[in-house]
């Protein structure tokens, strides 16, 4: 292979795309596994650390997936991510092989490196090389699902359909000493899955390359920064033309609000059905519980993401020129976008929560749930349900209302923060990347201090407590300064008006009222931190949209 060979160029392209994410994944994997080993129960820690590393390194490269135009269902162009290679004088099998091999091998190497480092640091014996075959074939199969077809349903259902059996296969091969021992047949199965995935991907990409796949799937479209058209067009609301605010509400509802709500309702239905099916079908319980456990978190962070509709296209992150040139104030635009998304997301969360609660009544009919293959975890789940019921029932009406207000404000803050983050990523990508390293570094420092305090006579738990307190006050001061700067800058640049500032002040006011009416807040300082954070996010969201609207 010469320096100028197409394979070298493609490998360089892959490396160039993924190098930052690789560093992030390596850091996140090591920090998370270290946290699990330091903080969790000693019997459970290694298992959690192992599965954490597997989760982090079994994902397809997101930097490559973003070439398709965005994240899942968000301006996404399904199919092979390196579609620009279709016009290059390279055989399909070559560029598919390079992309798949790079994805599978690089992620597996990262796992091996992370596991080796964690083993060395903590004296553990997490599996290192014994999982490589499983990881490689998992990556090949996942890439096959994502790249071989342009049909989203096949992509995601296929990914779910093969992921679950492969995870079960890996779990069954995990011994008590936390080593992966696969039988010859299992090894052959993994190899066959890998080979079949590669062949299918080559065939699927070849069809896409010559245009045959277009006829059987949705047309690849320009990045619109919105949900799929079929989902958006499921709701036929007439556009009001009497006022700009109503028209913008209609735009937000149709382009993202109602699709978010629909997805939330589908998730709720899936939870209900999965738990209900768990009664007669014992295997389904292993699927139902993880779905139920992570549904709320995934919904908040997945469906609450990118409320400003920032677009991505081949590495370019930008705001829509159509929306940017609407005669509408930036703060008003930002407020409407965040409010509509929050309202729809809240409604979806309420439905998901109601379904979780309703479906939990099926747990009584399960009989047992062998979570780790031996111990019945059902009694713990039922106890948790009873505890939750008791705790919530014991709250006064005021406290329940206060909790609802806090939850709504927190969801709005998460939506606004994620929207602002996307806008800042478009405008200040490197700065944001640097800032994103702070939380994992803080966690790493915290873990290292905790471990050192456990094993050393010099450091005491009081040192860790002091570090925690210092971090708390430093972050509070930083948030306060950021809020003041954003307020001053927003008013100076006329992004914010006095009316906007008063509206933003309603948030701390609502939090204060909720606190005084009996919200079970941890402390005054905790409450103060929360108020400052929500206020800062309230000023940050319009400011960040202004920065991307007026570059």
């Amino acid at each position, binding site marked *: 292979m010469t320096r100028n060979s197409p394979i070298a160029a493609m490998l360089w392209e892959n490396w160039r795309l993924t190098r930052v994410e690789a560093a992030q994944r390596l850091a996140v994997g090591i920090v998370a596994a270290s946290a699990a080993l330091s903080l969790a129960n000693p019997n459970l820690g290694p298992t959690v650390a192992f599965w954490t590393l597997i989760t982090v390194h079994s994902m397809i490269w997101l930097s490559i997936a973003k070439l398709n135009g965005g994240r899942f269902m968000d301006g996404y162009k399904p199919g092979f991510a390196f579609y620009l290679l279709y016009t290059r004088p390279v055989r399909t099998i070559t560029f598919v092989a390079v992309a798949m091999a790079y994805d599978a091998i690089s992620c597996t190497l990262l796992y091996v490196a992370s596991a080796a480092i964690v083993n060395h640091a903590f004296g553990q014996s997490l599996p290192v090389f014994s999982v490589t075959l499983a990881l490689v074939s998992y990556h090949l199969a996942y890439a096959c699902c994502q790249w071989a077809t342009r049909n989203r349903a096949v992509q995601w259902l296929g990914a779910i359909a093969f992921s679950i059996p492969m995870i079960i296969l890996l779990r069954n091969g995990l011994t008590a000493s936390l080593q992966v021992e696969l039988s010859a047949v299992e090894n052959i199965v993994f190899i066959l899955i890998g080979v079949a995935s590669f062949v299918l991907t080559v065939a699927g990409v070849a069809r896409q390359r010559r245009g045959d796949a277009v006829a059987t799937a949705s047309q690849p479209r320009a990045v619109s920064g919105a949900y799929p*058209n079929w989902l958006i067009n499921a709701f036929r609301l007439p*556009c009001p033309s009497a006022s700009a605010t109503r028209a913008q509400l*209609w735009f937000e509802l149709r382009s993202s609000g109602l699709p978010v709500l629909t997805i939330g309702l589908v998730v709720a239905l899936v939870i209900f059905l999965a738990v209900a099916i768990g009664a007669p079908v014992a295997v389904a319980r292993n699927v139902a519980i993880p779905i139920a456990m992570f549904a709320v978190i995934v919904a908040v962070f997945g469906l609450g993401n990118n409320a400003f509709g920032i677009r991505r296209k081949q590495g370019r992150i930008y705001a829509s020129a*159509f929306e940017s040139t609407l*005669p509408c*104030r930036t703060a008003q635009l930002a407020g409407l976008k965040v409010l509509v998304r929050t309202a729809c997301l809240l409604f979806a969360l309420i439905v998901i929560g109601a379904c979780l609660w309703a479906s939990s009544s099926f747990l009584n009919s399960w009989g047992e749930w062998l979570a780790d293959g031996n111990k019945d975890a059902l009694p713990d789940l039922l106890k948790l349900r009873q505890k939750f019921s008791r705790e919530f029932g014991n709250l006064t009406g005021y406290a329940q209302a206060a909790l609802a207000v806090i939850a709504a404000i927190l969801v709005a803050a998460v939506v606004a923060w994620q929207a602002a983050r996307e806008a800042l990523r478009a405008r200040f990508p490197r700065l944001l990347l640097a800032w994103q390293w702070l939380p994992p570094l803080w966690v790493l420092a915290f873990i290292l201090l905790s471990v050192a305090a456990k094993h050393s006579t010099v450091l005491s738990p009081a040192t860790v407590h002091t570090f925690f307190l210092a971090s708390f006050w430093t972050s509070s001061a930083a948030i306060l300064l950021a809020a003041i700067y954003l307020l001053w800058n927003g008013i100076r640049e006329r992004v914010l008006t006095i009316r906007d500032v008063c509206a933003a002040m309603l948030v701390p006011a609502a939090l204060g009222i909720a606190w005084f009416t009996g919200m079970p807040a941890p402390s005054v300082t905790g409450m103060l931190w929360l108020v400052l954070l929500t206020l800062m996010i309230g000023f940050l969201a319009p400011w960040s949209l202004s920065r991307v609207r007026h570059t």
Partner: protein
Amino acid sequence: MEQSIVDVSNLSRTFGDKAALDDVSFRATAGQVYGLVGSNGAGKTTLLKHLLGLLRAASGSVRVFGLDPVRDPVGVLGRVGYLSEERELPEWMRIDELMRYTQAYHQTWDAAYARELLETFALDPAKKVKDLSKGMRAQAGLIVAVAHRPALLILDEPSSGLDAVVRRDILDAIVRAVADDGRTVIFSSHLLDEVERMSDHVTLMHQGRVTLSGALDEVRRQYQRSRVHFAENFVQPPVLETALLIEGGGRAWSVVHSGAPEKFRQSVLARGGEVVESRDATLEEIFMARAGRSRQQMEAA
């Protein structure tokens, strides 16, 4: 003095190391059509984006209707119609929804005019934007930009994607109607014949600088194309005063020159030649001469 609709003073903007705009000044008054011409990367779109407030002025100032478009987007964008080069429209909307949606933002929306344009372009209002061809998308974008009868119409490469008939008949008519109405049009284009046909004023940009600006007739009068004959053969182009572009060979040369024709004639005579024919230069000839001259200056520097 006529009131300025657009007033750009000493505007500069860099992207990384590259100067996209370098000390650009530009002024537009009501009822006129302004054509921006220049090669790729000349800074035309960057200048238009500053007028819309999509880019902040790093140095210098931008005023549209006397307002800063970044600080007062509602005041400016409410009176501006814009057709972007990318023809970016919400893919999921139907054309009739797009019309209603845009109407909500503009009190001055002329529904009858929008309908008339839809019929002229033969666009189906029930069709979704994502199903439109590039040309149809440009037509939809154009309707949305002009139907609220904006005081300032900004068109970035309006001809891109439009067929010759639409370009010559409909686009010209729309632009002329806007200007005749006392409103202002600023458009950028690579097509010099189009700029020559549609504009009252022309601004030539090259590498982020305005190299030429003025009323089209005035600009054309300032530049002439002359055929000259010399008694002797020239291997290299002869050095002639006020000449910007010299083409040809031997004894017959064709020269684009600026300034006083008499000065040029004297210069030709001094080298033993004579001016056979002279006429006003076309915009394309002026563009080639000015762009070539800028390149030479850059190379010399």
